[in-house]
């Protein structure tokens, strides 16, 4: 929202020496965030009002016309202008030869399209008001031609307040409310608001407007007034300039006046053509009703749309926009002025459903003060009379107020104030702070009783903490010395889930040398099609970020594979890691699980075996590191729905005998589908479910020990047929028991020319020893014989 400093000065005498930037900074730190402060410097010099006497086309040009202007003292000049609309008898802002504005420099005389052109009619744009190209600002007719227009009308400071920072403050949606805060900040008085007394408005001797509110929950108050002697002349120039400064385009006297009140008090108003509206009813739109708003658009009304109706016929979208049929036009001679108060949620809901957010609806959504319906009419009449002395009131102020907000009085415990602010705030200081903001403070023995002004009592301030905030922000957040808190020490059970995740991430990104990355939570359908993966039932988004992004992931693999494709040109090899959530449909509640996903890839045909073992090594290390337990790998039935599972290379990752994940390599077929170049790559992957593992308390690992007597290492190479699996051999070795046996470890495997065809040699290191004595040669020889006997009984050859 834009605030004009000139405008603000109507309500508070901000001293000339106050730097607007400083004011903005103080406002930011006390009330709401100022986003920008800038100077409007029109640089007007020598401008005057000039009356249009005649306008004629210049045939040789496309859009230029010749205007004859009365410039005062009986002088009439001719000037060429691009202004699209000029009305005879209205005043324009005229720069005689020698006058200047910053945007155009000094204005002179010129020959344009063969005609002598003296001076210039200034466009809104040249005066810093956003209008259509060339469009001129009209000055009020009361100004005699030749009247100098003072430069200070044009120059101003504009303060832009972040709308998001005042969503909870309906009172700050106009200059008056901002002025109240500024006055309080600087300890200045808030000047009286120039209004016409209610008594006068209520006392008009004419029939009141029949008003009816069907649902007081949706419409708290409706106030109206009929006016005759409707102005057709433009609003005063100063008023138009102010509207321009706060980003509103001057349109016509009536629109400008109502907009001015809205920007002044924050209360939206609407003017109906009085001849077309007999009475006012506030009610709900009929089902499927179609209504034409004043922007000419026909709109089908969603259910629960609040309407202003007259004898059952809709005439406005309550709080959002008026209707075309009752719009004021040039033919309008009488007005029905509306100033109402609607329920915030109702207006918000309709505005969203209609896709129609207006300045009015934006304000009603904040829950406005119902007191302002009448106050705004009082102000409107005062302002309009000032501009248009011919204005007549043709009805008394009519008011239907079935649903006032209850007055709010809050008990404030002094101890709670001290506790929050961090120091004691004496009653006098509380009064000094709250008084200018409109609060009344009555001191009780323990509590303060604070009555909240109506403009803060519509949901903004209703509990003690709200009042304490007012006190605290005026004590000055940046003036309170920082103090670290005094605390109660207590012990917390560590969050088991995070412990597991942290250890997992630390291990894989550290010792195992993976690079962590983050992926989105949802599948990309296009990518799944590329992969040939049909995920089945997923937890789904009702409003996905884009088409095809509606399914939440059940596995981290598609994302990791996509990341691999993205990185393949930049690296010869990469190891990718992600820890994140996956989701599963379940009864009665859909479930979320935490997973770790790992992908190891290298540009090397046939490197799968090595990568697979690298991953296996990493997972084994992870098991010890995170849980003090051995991870094992069991046979797995390949999930054919998941194209990244290799038909031969897939294993189940197990901990404590329970399957917790999968280890596999990406089959050639999938590499081809993903990206032709990846066929030259080896890709292994693993995915493990961490959820559930938090219950495994990390076991303390037994440390190594120095045996009392030396151990002896004996190596055995076991010759087996190539298709015999290591696991099978290891199982058989585990069956062997012997009092001297300490450990059997795998050393390595060998295939090659030194061996018979189709044979493989697996080497094991067997460690033997005795706790009570040193072994002698006979012991080891006897052991060797027994062990070889066992191997032979298993059908294995021993290779010497």
């Amino acid at each position, binding site marked *: 929202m834009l605030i004009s400093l000139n405008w603000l000065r109507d309500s508070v005498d901000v001293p000339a020496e106050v730097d607007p930037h400083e004011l903005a900074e103080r406002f930011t730190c006390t009330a709401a965030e100022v986003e920008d402060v800038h100077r409007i410097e029109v640089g007007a010099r020598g401008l005057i009002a000039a009356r249009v006497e005649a306008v004629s086309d210049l045939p040789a040009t496309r859009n230029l016309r010749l205007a004859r202007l009365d410039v005062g003292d009986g002088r009439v000049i001719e000037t060429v202008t691009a202004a699209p609309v000029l009305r005879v008898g209205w005043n324009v802002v005229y720069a005689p030869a020698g006058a200047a504005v910053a945007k155009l420099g000094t204005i002179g005389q010129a020959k344009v399209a063969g005609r002598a052109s003296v001076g210039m009619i200034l466009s809104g744009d040249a005066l810093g008001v956003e209008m259509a190209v060339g469009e001129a600002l009209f000055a009020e007719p009361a100004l005699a031609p030749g009247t100098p227009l003072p430069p200070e009308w044009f120059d101003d400071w504009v303060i832009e307040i972040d709308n998001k920072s005042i969503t909870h403050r309906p009172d700050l949606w106009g200059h008056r409310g901002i002025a109240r805060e500024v006055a309080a900040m600087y300890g200045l008085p808030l000047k009286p608001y120039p209004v016409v007394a209610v008594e006068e408005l209520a006392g008009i001797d004419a029939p009141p407007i029949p008003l009816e509110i069907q649902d007081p929950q949706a419409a708290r108050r409706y106030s109206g007034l009929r006016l005759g002697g409707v102005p057709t002349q433009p609003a005063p120039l100063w008023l138009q300039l102010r509207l321009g400064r706060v980003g509103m385009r001057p349109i016509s006297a009536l629109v400008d006046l109502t907009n001015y009140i809205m920007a002044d008090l924050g209360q939206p108003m609407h003017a109906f053509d009085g001849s077309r509206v007999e009475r006012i009813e506030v009610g709900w739109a009929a089902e499927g009703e179609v209504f034409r708003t004043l922007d000419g658009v026909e709109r089908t009304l969603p259910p629960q749309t609040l309407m202003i109706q007259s004898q059952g016929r809709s005439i406005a979208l309550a709080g959002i926009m008026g209707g075309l049929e009752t719009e004021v036009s040039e033919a309008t001679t009488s007005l029905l002025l509306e100033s109402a108060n609607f329920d915030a949620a109702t207006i918000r809901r309709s505005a969203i459903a209609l896709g129609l957010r207006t300045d009015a609806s934006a304000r009603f959504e904040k829950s406005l003060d119902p007191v302002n319906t009448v106050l705004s009419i009082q102000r409107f009449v005062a302002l309009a009379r000032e501009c248009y002395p011919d204005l007549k009131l043709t009805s008394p102020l009519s008011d239907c107020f079935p649903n006032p907000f209850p007055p709010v009085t809050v008990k404030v415990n002094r101890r709670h104030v001290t506790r929050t602010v961090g120091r004691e705030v004496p009653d006098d200081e509380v009064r000094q702070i709250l008084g200018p903001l409109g609060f009344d403070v009555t001191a009780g023995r323990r509590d303060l009783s604070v009555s909240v002004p109506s403009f803060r009592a519509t949901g903004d301030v209703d509990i003690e903490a709200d009042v304490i*905030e007012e006190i605290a922000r005026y004590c000055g957040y940046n003036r309170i010395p920082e103090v670290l808190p*005094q605390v109660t020490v207590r012990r917390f059970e560590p969050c088991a889930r995070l412990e597991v995740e942290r250890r997992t991430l630390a291990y894989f990104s550290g010792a195992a040398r993976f690079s962590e990355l983050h992926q989105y939570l949802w599948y990309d359908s296009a990518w799944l099609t590329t992969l040939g993966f049909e995920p089945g039932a997923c937890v789904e988004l009702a409003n996905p970020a884009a088409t095809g992004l509606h399914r939440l992931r059940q596995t981290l693999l598609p994302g990791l594979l996509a990341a691999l494709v993205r990185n393949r040109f930049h690296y010869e090899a990469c190891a990718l890691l992600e820890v994140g959530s996956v989701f599963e449909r379940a009864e009665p509640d859909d479930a979320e699980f935490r997973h770790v996903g790992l992908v190891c890839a290298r540009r090397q045909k046939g490197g799968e075996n090595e990568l697979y073992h690298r991953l296996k090594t990493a997972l084994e290390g992870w098991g010890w590191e995170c849980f003090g337990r051995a991870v094992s790998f069991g046979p797995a039935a390949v999930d054919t729905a998941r194209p990244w599972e290799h038909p031969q290379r897939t294993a189940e990752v197990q901990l404590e005998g329970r399957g917790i994940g999968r280890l596999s390599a990406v089959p050639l077929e999938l590499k081809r589908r993903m990206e032709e170049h990846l066929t030259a790559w080896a890709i292994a992957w693993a995915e493990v479910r961490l959820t559930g593992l938090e219950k495994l308390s990390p076991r303390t690992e037994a440390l190594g020990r120095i045996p009392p007597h030396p151990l002896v290492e004996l190596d055995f190479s076991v010759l087996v047929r190539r298709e015999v699996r290591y696991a099978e051999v290891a199982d058989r070795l585990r069956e062997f028991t012997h009092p001297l046996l300490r450990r059997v470890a795998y050393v390595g495997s060998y295939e090659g020319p030194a061996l018979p065809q189709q044979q493989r040699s697996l080497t094991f290191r067997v460690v033997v020893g005795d706790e009570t004595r040193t072994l002698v040669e006979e012991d080891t020889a006897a052991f060797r014989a027994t062990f070889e006997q066992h191997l032979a009984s298993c059908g294995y050859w021993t290779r010497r």
Partner: protein
Amino acid sequence: MDIEQLGQRIAEIEAAVVARLPSVANVDDLRRVENEVLGKEGALGALITTIKEYPPAQRGQVGQVINAAKGRVKAALDGRRAALEAAVADAEAAAAAAFDPTLPGYVEPMGSVHPVTAVQWRIERLFERLGFTVEAGPEMEEEYYNFEALNIPATHPARDMQDTFWLTNRKVLRTQTSPVQVRAMLKYGAPLRIIAPGRCFRYETIDASHENTFHQVEGLMIDREISIPNLIALAHTLLREVMERDVKVRVRPGFFPFVEPGLEIDMNCQICAGKGCPTCKQSGWIEVLPCGMVHPNVLLAGKVDPHEFSGFAFGLGLTRLAMMKYGIGDIRVLNSGDLRPIVAARRLEGPVVAAV
């Protein structure tokens, strides 16, 4: 064998050894030769056992002859050993001289964590030093914890479709880490000190500075006398720690339904040092820490008595902080999966000769 024969035999042995020595190429071979000659069963060594074959009167002389021979052989062997060792030392010295100790180490990729994780861990360590515990909550959150419990009623604008990712099961992807506040209060009661880092989601159009998926850290502290100055002091400590330098803070009112009073804590822009730049929209300040005193309704939702206890809560934009700390200009790179902008090049590529 008489003494004369013995002398002759010894001379032969000695001559043979001396003749062999020049062809002995290394110390191991030399040791073998020494053993063959001087060992118990060696050519000379074995002669000692023949002493008892001589008459007692001669034995002394025999012994002397043998020992003298052994001494000479030993000296010859030692001479050769010294020569061999010198040669080895020379070769070693030559090799060392040819060695280039300035060659870089091997290229072995290092692992790395995501920049957001790195900042998150730093913050977790800080808060653990301050006696906070670290909590987690689900990313798929119940509407109640994401909204109602945080004093965000059904009519609040934050409930709009356009800000929240709704699931068809009526749950939401949490829009903030704040739901953990109430979950933690219910789990632990007061007094309480937690932080809760995690991923959040907002229905938002993605561009260089907006993401629909980002990280926050929630902070919550509840005790008997918690004040706004406490909150500011802690926030200042936090920002100094994360940026690893002293920073200035500015505190101003802010509005969030779950705190009252609500505050915004700004940090002086680290890019322009407060002078004004596009990142701080020329203001010199960066909004980093929305926070405030926990709203009594939120305390009540967590079954904490607002009369006995007060507390503060804050939500720190981890993603933004990581971007500022690492100078990441485009937020989209963080979830893109491209390693280049999120991993230090040297971690993956090893030592480089030069880089610009």
